[in-house]
């Protein structure tokens, strides 16, 4: 059962400067579903709209980010609600923290520098629960234990901790209320591989113990490979490919996905590697048709003119590329007959 359904979401940054308005089309027609208990990964080019997507679906859009269209429906224990339709900020805030939790990108820096870690825990817990001092301590201790963190960190200030420690604390903070769905934006960035693996372990443990669902944004494709059930690849405001992790890694279909996977360097290999040609496109005036066409080695006339739809090409594997259209047609016929 889907815990989250996103339909045709459009979220633009609209700014008015010098009497002109510009819109950055950061999320432009995105649809996907996340099943309960799964780990859904999102990868994509720097600046393509991943963080914006997470902001929009967790109900955190505020000017200049505007939702122009779309639905974001959550399904908690049979109760369906469209977070975009909730216009009461109080209701939304209650949902966040308790039901939905977002670990923002660069979140190591969201810890308040002049407050001890303990205070940050108190803030978040007291905002949602009425607990005694003993209950508070017991709750936090148990949680920290499970995450391999020591109680003494509670007395420290953020700047006294290393990046890895701060990151683990942010994760601890955002999961202490046992939310149903956690959105994590680059949670393993800048951690060494051992701690990265520890964080992955931790996230999986939280997922199993708390039975929560996880949406994970990261540039680290190896983390996606090790952790996720399904993966979506974004390019310039759109999902261009989506499918089971195994299937994306073994048979990537979209030329952008292929380029991304090909640019991964391997330990022990220092032969020259290239990257996708050209620079990321502007989201103010994105390229016509398929937004990848100016950088695509297989670009055809059609790609410049029309926007390819995200179509199914094999079990649960969807691709937005005209090259795959034949495959998709065959699939549809097979289903139809």
């Amino acid at each position: 059962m889907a815990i989250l359904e996103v339909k045709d979401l459009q979220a633009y940054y609209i700014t008015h400067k010098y009497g002109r308005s510009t819109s950055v089309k950061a999320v432009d027609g995105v649809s996907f579903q996340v099943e309960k208990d799964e780990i859904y990964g999102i990868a994509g080019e720097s600046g393509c709209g991943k963080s914006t997507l997470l902001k929009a679906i967790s109900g955190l859009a505020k000017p200049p980010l505007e939702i122009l269209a779309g639905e974001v429906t959550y399904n908690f224990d049979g109760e369906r609600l469209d977070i975009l339709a909730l216009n009461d900020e109080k209701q939304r805030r209650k949902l966040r923290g308790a039901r939905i939790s977002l670990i923002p990108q660069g979140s190591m820096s969201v810890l308040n520098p002049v407050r001890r870690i303990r205070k940050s825990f108190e803030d978040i817990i007291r905002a949602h629960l009425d607990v005694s001092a003993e209950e508070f301590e017991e709750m936090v201790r148990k949680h920290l234990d499970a995450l391999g963190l020591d109680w003494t960190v509670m007395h420290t200030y953020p700047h006294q901790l290393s990046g890895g420690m701060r990151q683990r604390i942010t994760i601890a903070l955002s999961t202490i209320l046992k939310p149903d769905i956690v959105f994590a934006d680059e949670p393993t960035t800048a951690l060494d591989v051992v701690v990265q693996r520890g964080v992955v372990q931790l996230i999986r443990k939280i997922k199993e113990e708390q039975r929560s669902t996880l949406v994970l944004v990261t540039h680290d494709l190896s983390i996606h490979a090790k952790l996720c059930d399904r993966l979506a690849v974004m390019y310039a405001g759109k999902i261009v490919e989506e499918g089971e992790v195994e299937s994306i890694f073994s048979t990537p279909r979209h030329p952008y996905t292929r380029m991304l996977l090909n640019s991964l360097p391997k330990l022990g290999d220092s032969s020259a590697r290239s990257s996708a040609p050209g620079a990321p496109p502007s989201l103010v005036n994105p390229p016509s048709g398929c937004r990848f066409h100016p950088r695509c080695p297989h670009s055809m006339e059609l790609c410049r003119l029309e926007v390819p739809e995200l179509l199914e090409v094999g079990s649960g594997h969807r691709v937005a590329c005209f090259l795959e259209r034949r495959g998709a047609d065959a699939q549809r016929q097979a289903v139809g007959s």
Partner: protein
Amino acid sequence: MHSGKLLEASDLTKVFTKGQGFVRSTIEAVSRVSLSLDLAKPEIFTLAGESGSGKSTVAKLILGFEAPTSGKIWYRGRPIANLKGTKEFMKDVQPVFQNPFETFNPLKKVQSYFFETERNFAGSAQGSYPLTEKSLELVGLNFSEIKDKYPSEMSGGQLQRASIARALITNPALLIADEPVSMIDASLRMSVVNLFKTLKEEQRVSIIYITHDLATAYYISDRIAIMLRGQFVEVGSVKKVLDNPLHPYTQLLKSSVPDPDPRSRWEEDIALSDLETREYTRRGCKFAGRCPQVQKICCEGEPDYHAVDDRLVKCHLYS
């Protein structure tokens, strides 16, 4: 004695105090670290190692942002203590900070960092910023993408690339890049890393590259130092160290590098270090608590450096 060296750091130690009251402890975040870079032969020197092992602190010491508790650093034969803050030094040695979200003041337009740097160090006239545009293009950004924007209006990877671009404006001789590509996708990451290689080869820029990404380290660097709790535990050519790691900690690091293959998931749990401060204040070898090859002596005495197979290893196994 320092002639012929671009940078020479000898026996650097930095002590920090953490916590308060009875949980107060002091740690040597950097402990007797030495490194030097040749003037004649520019190189990319990687610092890798566990989170919280003192990599950023080493960077801050070299940049003169923190003063070492003991030890000395010379830049082109002159003590950093005298050079720091001078225009010459700031032009020559450029930092890229670890977290781009903390690098830029949220209340200041991103472009102002570029304009200031270009005016102060390259002497460009007010209102014309050719170097800004050029260096942004090197990292896949267009000036229009940062124009009039505040940091919160840019994505993490865009900020990180802007931070690299800013550092390149002054045409530095030494770039100290602390996790410079952690927030950008694999493809752009390769283009930045290739840029570093070109800078070294064509413009003779030396780079101290701090990263957790051993694959890119292997790809671009000449030498690597593996840090653990303030100490260099293995130092040598990147090929030697990563092809055939000798220190058990380097071996653990290498075996933890995830391969991008979903068919082999991580099944078994690994032991994470207990509280940092506990390892920092440990007697003997800092890794003894987690080392699969631990011996009695490891918990008693600190290992010396041993020269084995063209590198230095700080481990009792090689005594």
